[in-house]
């Protein structure tokens, strides 16, 4: 029993943090927002090189062979940087999904063997069409689409040339609040050939994908929350009114103290959920939902308070705060909004004979 990270895990986290601070500053995020594709292949390749994209890819396929306990810290960093690249879908959801598909038979193994190395190398973006999300994030730049249709899961590879691409997959952009996450209504031709799993097997994969997607959002929310808090603290230290920094006013201090409290009590929940998913603990559904709710609430509070502390300047497009505010709002909605996750926790807590109360916290373990 040890609730904490190893030095190696923390080192990898700080490496990624330093990298993103340097390579993905706010100006880079804005550049990507405004760019035609929203994608940055060079940055993507560097993330691969750092091991972020291939963290969950088995070493045999060129990855680090790690699991959610490691990845959660890296995702936190991508949230802190408001990184507008499809890390959640590709690294957190698609990689383990392909890994699991690889264990279902020859066709699956072939698919995994074809794509996992490319992901680890930074050569592939995967988009996920999951029944829990109405739209598909980053579908237009995806090299592989894993899309649920009916009771089946399909793997679709749009051709890389634009002409043939639109023949197989049509992506209709949906204007949304977070320019760093482009979402699309996707129409594509599925067939027996594109089908990679069906029935209970497909459902199992999709269920696991949902947990991983929600967990990844929660992890990014932690980072985004901490960053919004840091921005607000920094502004409150520097901005003077009435002859003193506004951060010396209790009204400002207490608003930000509340954010800190909520953040620090969301953090262990997210970390536990990472452990639960990695270990396939019995409690993983409720742990993940709890994590998504706790991190979402912390993010919402941080956005609200950081904006209030910034005042009018926070309300401008020029100020960087909204890079994280928009992110926090969209992450809270992605992979299950609040009512969905609250219902899952409710169902668990209110069931007859639910294992709740003192002593049950780690009992739902595998």
């Amino acid at each position, binding site marked *: 029993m040890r609730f904490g990270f190893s030095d190696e895990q923390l080192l990898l986290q700080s490496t990624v943090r330093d990298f993103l601070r340097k390579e993905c500053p706010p100006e880079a995020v804005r550049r990507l927002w405004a760019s035609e594709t929203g994608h940055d292949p060079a940055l993507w390749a560097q993330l691969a090189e750092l091991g972020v994209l291939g963290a969950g890819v088995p070493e045999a396929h060129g990855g680090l062979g790690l699991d959610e306990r490691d990845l959660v810290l890296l995702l936190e960093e991508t949230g802190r940087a408001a990184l507008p690249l499809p890390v959640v879908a590709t690294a957190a959801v698609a990689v383990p999904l392909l890994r699991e598909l690889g264990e279902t038979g020859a066709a699956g193994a072939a698919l995994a063997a074809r794509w996992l190395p490319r992901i680890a190398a930074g050569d592939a973006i995967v988009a996920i069409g999951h029944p829990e999300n109405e739209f598909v994030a980053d579908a237009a730049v995806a090299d592989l689409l894993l899309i649920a249709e009916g009771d089946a899961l399909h793997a679709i590879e749009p051709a890389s040339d634009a002409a043939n691409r639109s023949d197989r997959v049509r992506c209709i952009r949906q204007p949304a*609040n977070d320019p760093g996450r482009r979402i699309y209504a996707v129409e594509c031709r599925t067939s027996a050939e594109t089908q990679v799993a069906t029935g209970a097997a497909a459902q199992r994969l999709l269920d696991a994908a949902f947990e991983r997607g929600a967990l990844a959002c929660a992890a990014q929310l932690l980072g985004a929350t901490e960053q919004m808090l840091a921005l607000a603290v920094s502004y409150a230290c520097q901005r003077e009114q009435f002859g003193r920094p506004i951060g010396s006013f209790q009204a400002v201090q207490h608003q930000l103290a509340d954010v800190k409290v909520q953040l620090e009590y969301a953090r262990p929940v997210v970390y536990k959920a990472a452990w639960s998913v990695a270990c396939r603990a019995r409690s993983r559904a409720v742990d993940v939902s709890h994590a998504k709710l706790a991190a979402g609430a912390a993010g919402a509070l941080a956005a609200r308070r950081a904006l209030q502390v910034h005042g*009018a300047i926070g309300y401008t497009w020029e100020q960087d705060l909204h890079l994280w505010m928009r992110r926090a709002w969209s992450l809270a909605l992605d992979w299950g909004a609040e*009512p969905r996750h609250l219902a899952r926790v409710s169902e668990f807590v209110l069931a007859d004979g639910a294992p709740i109360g003192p002593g049950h916290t780690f009992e739902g373990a595998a």
Partner: protein
Amino acid sequence: MDLLPTAAQQAFRAGARAWLEANVPSTSLRSFDTREGFEQHRAWERRLHAGGFAMVPWPVEYGGRGADLLEWLIFEEEYYRAGAPKRVNQNGIFLLGPTIMEFGTPAQKARFLPQIASSEEVWAQGWSEPNAGSDMAAIQAQARREGDHYILRGQKTWASRGAFADWLFGMFRTDPASERHKGLSFLLVPLDTPGVTVRPIAQLSGETGFAEVFFDDARVPVENRLAGEGDGWRVAMATAGFERGLMLRSPARFQKTAQQLVALYRGHADRAGEALRNDVVRCWMDAEAYALETYRTVSRLLAGGKIGFEASLNKIFWSELDVRMHETALRILGPRADLLAEAPASHASTRAGSVSGTDWLDGYLFSLSGPIYAGTNEIQRNLIAERILGLPRSA
């Protein structure tokens, strides 16, 4: 206590309703924080003015209708009920207008009020400076007297409507040796004065709802000063009271939002549960409470009362209600709350009728400015504590 409208009030309401039904544009205008929308809104103001409804509580001689404040509330109810456009000249009609009526000379009244009522002159406000936000007394922009002119130097910021407006009002330091609340004067400045530069600022919505305004030896005639030299703070406090209170935030606005929220909920009642229902109902109640308190205040004013620091109570109540209503709406919309207006409607939001789900996101962003502008809610709470409750001054 008599809460029934008189026959005259009913007739006034009917008249306003009939005119609005006949005149309110059937398609919505573009945002007045775009050039095109700004001119569309100015055209609407001209029409309103021609119809005699531009500024109903103002005297007829200034382009008003000579109505009393109760009729004003009734007009506002009808205005929001009709879904009429937002008032592009709100700084002029709701803030500066009442200020000129209180502090202006007859000549100033005659010069400015009719142009405000008709929106031939649209106003920006120039409250803030980079170093004077909540601490408005920290104003640094200077107005140096030179004969019958002031020479303006300095900068204002967050000037709402600044991007497209014709005039700006604000405080300038006319006594260079003065500090804090002293030595300030309230000046009216044409934005096309040589030496005035306007830099629009993009807001969260991407539109340029406010601007920085730079003054580089801009010359303004002395007759553009409202009240005496050095009286600026007193004038501005009155204007700020209007901003926080009655005029700018008429209850009908929030009642309309609450009504739309109820409609949104009804359109999603199959998915949105009892918890959201309670929140919706609470929002409706609070919007009603705001209306009731406004009627009560107006009754008091008609009986000769004055508005004082209660305006701070208003400011907190409406601004936090507005945020709450929009947050509730976004929770009802669920995962679709993120979509912008141009996104295709979902089945659910279509069913919710005329209320487009996606307007709520824009409205939410706008509502978030409510607890910030017109004096942050932190400042208002200080005022309530110290000026109304009588707690000791905070350090």
